[in-house]
């Protein structure tokens, strides 16, 4: 134990030494620059703005310094630091910050106690100290421009794009009340009480007037989404609490910025000029800025959604469009002096469902990951730089009274505000927010980089005590992020706050959820009262009629066939797990032994319907050439990002009741295509075989000798019993797929596959599947398709099923029939041994039957 700790300590130290070296390198590079030509370099790692300023100077530099007009000889290499200086520093700093995160995550014992954001800030202190030591001045700090234009937008875009829409909109009222009224309350009370204390003489003499105090109150009341996400992601509180805190912090930023601008204007106007008219203008501008920004965001969301309808041919950069347009919505709002944060928030929230439907699945994944990388990256940088910026002698003006009182008021008024607003909200909420949740909500009011950015934006000419405010803001940020961040987890545990429940919803849950919604709607109708959801009902109607038509590809529906979507995702998960499990136990290379038919099958199906086939067997079989592992990983990759959405699909696809106030678009109103396309066809087939696999263990163990009985009869029977439907076979209709030529019935094809799979297990891997399944349960009712194919078919399913699960992976919750799951694994192991001998014997026979 001790040794392990020591080891991780060593790793930590090593990493840290590396970091320190990097910083020293950066500063020495910097120092050289300063000595060299005393050009004021960009203050910031990502100072793209200063990068542009700097280009002109560096071009000059290069002409005088590095490329002298007269050269005596041709230089082979030259030292061109000035060419790349700014981007180089930016890149180095990004690297450094990310390495910091790496260092933080090295030791999980630490991160479980200490929130990562706090750790990053502390590492920032150390880095800042090194820079200070080398430069004797803080040459790097977080510049508001960089923060607001290059770091913040992607964080907000990511947060809003990944926002759980349903939760967000169903709690929108509460969120808005907290974000608008709560923020105004905080700003006003903190400002006024600080001013009152100042007048009362608690802070000595300061050159701050009432309006400046109000301005300070406004900027300090910004609950920071970055800090909140960082802390709350580690404590898994229940989703309502999470969305309240998170949604509030997101919208509240916008509100704060607006308030800040209004008060900033007031400060510039100066006290005497402010009359009633100006105040009314201020209030009007507050609403115009906030709602205008939100409206602009919605406009951009519409643009993005419409654009994604036609980007099919440039799929590679599809995801980029969203990022760029989202960023533009931010900048446009900024240009029009509307609330940029609100703009990008609403842009992300509103467009998500349409673009997810319009874009290719891969692009959605790309977008999701890209945003995550960008957001996480800049979040890391923000925290590190919050630390680095602190190591600066110039900004520290100490005033004990001011600082302590600020912290006190910020916390106290946050609590009062949250409790009061929640009390009001609880009067009409169906599920009241309970007291512990309220407490956590209030405690989760972390201040962060937005407050710091706003403080750094203050104009020293107008506010002489800017540095005091900046310093105080930093202290409030440290106080909330580090202290409250650390105590949040124990507090949540101590208060026994309801944690997030495992969202592992089952088909059962989905179906019943929808049933409950219908029941409630019906009851509301019977009571004759308008339910809660008048607005959402009408919005849904409107959306179905007009919005979807405009914003969504008409064939978006086709690609996401209703209930199959859910089924498909669940099955895909199963398939992935299945294959992964299988791989642990042995190679899948035995599949190679099989002949060209399967290759063709793979080619045709894998290419065209790659996203359809999902039944474990089929996927194993599909990978019938040496590229097995590649395909598996392909599947892996595909399925993982959708794990989350898988469970929501049923929600979206069952008939909506009005109760369901999720304003996601409804796909119900599209008609399924009249002639089911191939995808659906294959899907049905795989579904059916799955169902057989569920049912078959109930049938008891069938003697092995029956396995290969009358194969031809079986197939012909099927052929006769089920007239070949030319339409159905169309996916296989081409000559290059041999089986299809022989037996047109789709059921027959499925049968072949099953048998082949049985076969493969015999050939390759240990086969624990041939377990005597002793089951005393009453004989099951055969599903229609089984009975329709006659007696032979009644035998077949069980062997198929047994064949289908060669390894019986233990964690295949969905895949494995109930009976299999509940069996002890011991029996599988023992059965394995005895059955292995049987397997090879039957192999030739089966070969025969199949081919």
């Amino acid at each position, binding site marked *: 134990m001790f040794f392990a700790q020591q080891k991780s300590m060593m790793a930590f130290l090593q990493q840290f030494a590396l970091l320190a070296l990097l910083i020293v390198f950066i500063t020495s590079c910097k120092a050289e620059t300063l000595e060299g030509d005393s050009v004021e370099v960009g203050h910031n790692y990502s100072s793209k703005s200063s990068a542009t300023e700097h280009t002109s100077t560096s071009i000059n530099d290069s002409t005088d310094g590095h490329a002298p007009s007269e050269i005596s000889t041709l230089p082979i290499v030259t030292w061109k630091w000035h060419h790349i200086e700014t981007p180089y520093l930016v890149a180095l700093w990004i690297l450094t910050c990310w390495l910091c995160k790496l260092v933080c995550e090295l030791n999980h014992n630490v991160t479980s106690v200490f929130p990562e954001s706090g750790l990053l800030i502390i590492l920032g202190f150390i880095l800042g100290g090194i820079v200070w030591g080398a430069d004797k001045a803080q040459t790097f700090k977080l510049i508001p421009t960089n923060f607001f234009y290059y770091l913040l937008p992607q964080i907000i875009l990511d947060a809003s794009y990944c926002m759980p829409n349903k939760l967000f909109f169903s709690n929108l009222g509460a969120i808005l009340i907290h974000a608008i009224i709560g923020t105004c309350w905080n700003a006003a009370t903190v400002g006024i009480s600080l001013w009152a204390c100042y007048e009362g003489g608690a802070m000595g003499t300061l050159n701050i007037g009432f309006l400046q105090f109000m301005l300070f109150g406004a900027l300090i009341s910004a609950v920071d989404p970055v800090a909140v996400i960082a802390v709350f992601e580690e404590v898994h509180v229940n989703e309502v609490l999470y969305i309240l805190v998170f949604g509030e912090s997101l919208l509240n930023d916008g509100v704060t910025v607006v308030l800040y601008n209004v008060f900033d204007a007031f400060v510039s106007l100066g006290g005497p000029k402010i009359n009633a008219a100006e105040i009314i203008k201020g209030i009007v501008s507050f609403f115009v800025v906030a709602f205008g920004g939100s409206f602009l965001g919605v406009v951009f969301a519409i643009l993005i959604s419409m654009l994604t309808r036609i980007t099919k041919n440039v799929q590679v950069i599809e995801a980029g469009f969203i990022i760029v347009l989202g960023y533009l919505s931010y900048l446009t709002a900024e240009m029009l002096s509307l609330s940029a944060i609100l703009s990008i928030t609403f842009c992300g929230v509103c467009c998500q469902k349409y673009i997810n439907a319009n874009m290719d699945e891969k692009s959605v994944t790309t977008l999701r990951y890209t945003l995550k990388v960008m957001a996480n990256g800049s979040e890391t940088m923000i925290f590190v730089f919050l630390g680095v910026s602190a190591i600066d002698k110039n900004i520290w003006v100490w005033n004990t009274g001011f600082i302590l009182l600020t912290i006190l008021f910020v916390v106290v008024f946050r609590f009062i505000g949250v409790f009061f607003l929640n009390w009001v909200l609880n009067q*009409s909420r*169906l*599920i009241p927010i309970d007291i512990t949740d309220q407490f956590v909500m209030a405690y989760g009011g972390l201040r962060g980089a937005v407050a710091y950015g706003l403080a750094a934006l203050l104009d020293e000419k107008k506010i002489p005590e800017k540095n005091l405010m900046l310093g105080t803001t930093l202290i409030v940020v440290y106080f909330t992020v580090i202290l409250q961040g650390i105590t949040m987890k124990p507090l949540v545990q101590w208060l026994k706050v309801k944690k997030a*429940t*495992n969202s*592992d*919803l*089952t*088909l*059962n*849950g989905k*179906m*019943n*959820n*929808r*049933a*409950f*919604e*219908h*029941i*409630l*709607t*019906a*009851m*509301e*109708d*019977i*009571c*004759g*009262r308008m*339910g*809660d959801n008048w607005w959402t009902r009408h919005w849904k109607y409107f959306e179905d009629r007009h919005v979807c038509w405009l914003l969504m590809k008409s064939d978006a529906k086709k690609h996401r066939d*209703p*209930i199959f979507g859910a*089924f498909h995702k669940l099955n895909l998960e199963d398939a992935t797990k299945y294959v992964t499990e299988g791989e642990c136990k042995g190679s899948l290379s035995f599949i190679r032994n099989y002949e060209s038919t399967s290759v063709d099958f793979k080619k045709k199906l894998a290419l065209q319907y790659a996203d359809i086939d999902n039944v474990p067997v089929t996927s194993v079989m599909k990978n019938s050439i040496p590229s097995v592992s590649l395909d598996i990983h392909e599947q892996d990759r595909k399925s993982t990002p959708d794990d989350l959405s898988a469970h929501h699909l049923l929600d979206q696809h*069952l008939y909506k009741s009005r109760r369901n106030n999720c304003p996601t678009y409804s796909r*119900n109103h599209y008609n*399924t295509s009249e002639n*089911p396309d191939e995808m659906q066809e294959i*899907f*049905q087939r795989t*579904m*059916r075989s*799955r*169902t057989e696999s*569920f*049912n078959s263990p*109930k049938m008891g163990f069938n003697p092995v000798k029956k396995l290969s009985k009358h194969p031809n009869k079986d197939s012909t029977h099927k052929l006769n019993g089920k007239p070949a439907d030319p339409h159905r076979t169309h996916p296989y209709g081409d000559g290059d797929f041999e089986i299809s030529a022989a037996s047109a019935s789709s059921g027959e094809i499925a049968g072949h596959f099953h048998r082949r799979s049985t076969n493969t297990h015999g050939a390759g891997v240990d086969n624990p599947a041939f377990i005597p399944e002793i*089951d005393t*349960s*009453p004989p*099951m*009712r055969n*599903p*229609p*398709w089984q009975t329709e194919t006659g007696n032979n078919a009644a035998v077949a399913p069980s062997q198929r099923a047994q064949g289908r699960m060669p390894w019986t992976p233990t964690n295949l919750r*969905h895949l494995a*029939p*109930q*009976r299999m799951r509940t069996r002890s694994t011991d029996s599988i192991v023992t059965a394995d041994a005895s059955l292995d001998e049987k397997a090879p014997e039957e192999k030739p026979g089966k070969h025969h039957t199949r081919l």
Partner: protein
Amino acid sequence: MGSTNSTLLKIPNVEVLMQETGFSPAHIIRLHDRFKALDKEGRGHLCPQDFGAIKELAMNPIGDRIIGAFFSPGKETVDFDTFVKILAHFRPVDKDRPKELNSPEPINSRSNKLRFAFQLYDQDKDGKISRDELLQVLRAMLGMQVTEEQLESVADRTIQEADLDRDDAISFEEFRKSLEKINIDNLMSIRFLR
């Protein structure tokens, strides 16, 4: 207040009803008004046709079943008492109300809410949701979007998920277990009945 009392007095057994359902007088009156409005012919009871006249209900995919739930087997009518008691299932659970120790389980308890949902599936009242019964509900809720085969595979999988005793049907106990993680109190409560 006078009119409130006079309305209340017209309802027989109103005290007992309020006790059992936990509704306030205001709720009872509102429901009573609604009851009278539905009872167009003034017979003092409702028939299935009266429910059928509610336009929105006709659009509810499982509306018929819900109407059916109001009528106990064999009966063609529902009186006000039963009407209120059934609606009482959807009253939000109130935590503040003091619990009397030996009082019977309130109508709006979790398991009663679940039982109400369960009996919508279990049309033959044998205490189990059979595959056929599940299929019918699924068909109603999914409609024409899916083929019969798809429906069946979904139904099979659903049963298989919940079925613990391997009898190919979902008993109430299994039904409850399968919904253990779902917050029924929230999903099966109507705000204005609080």
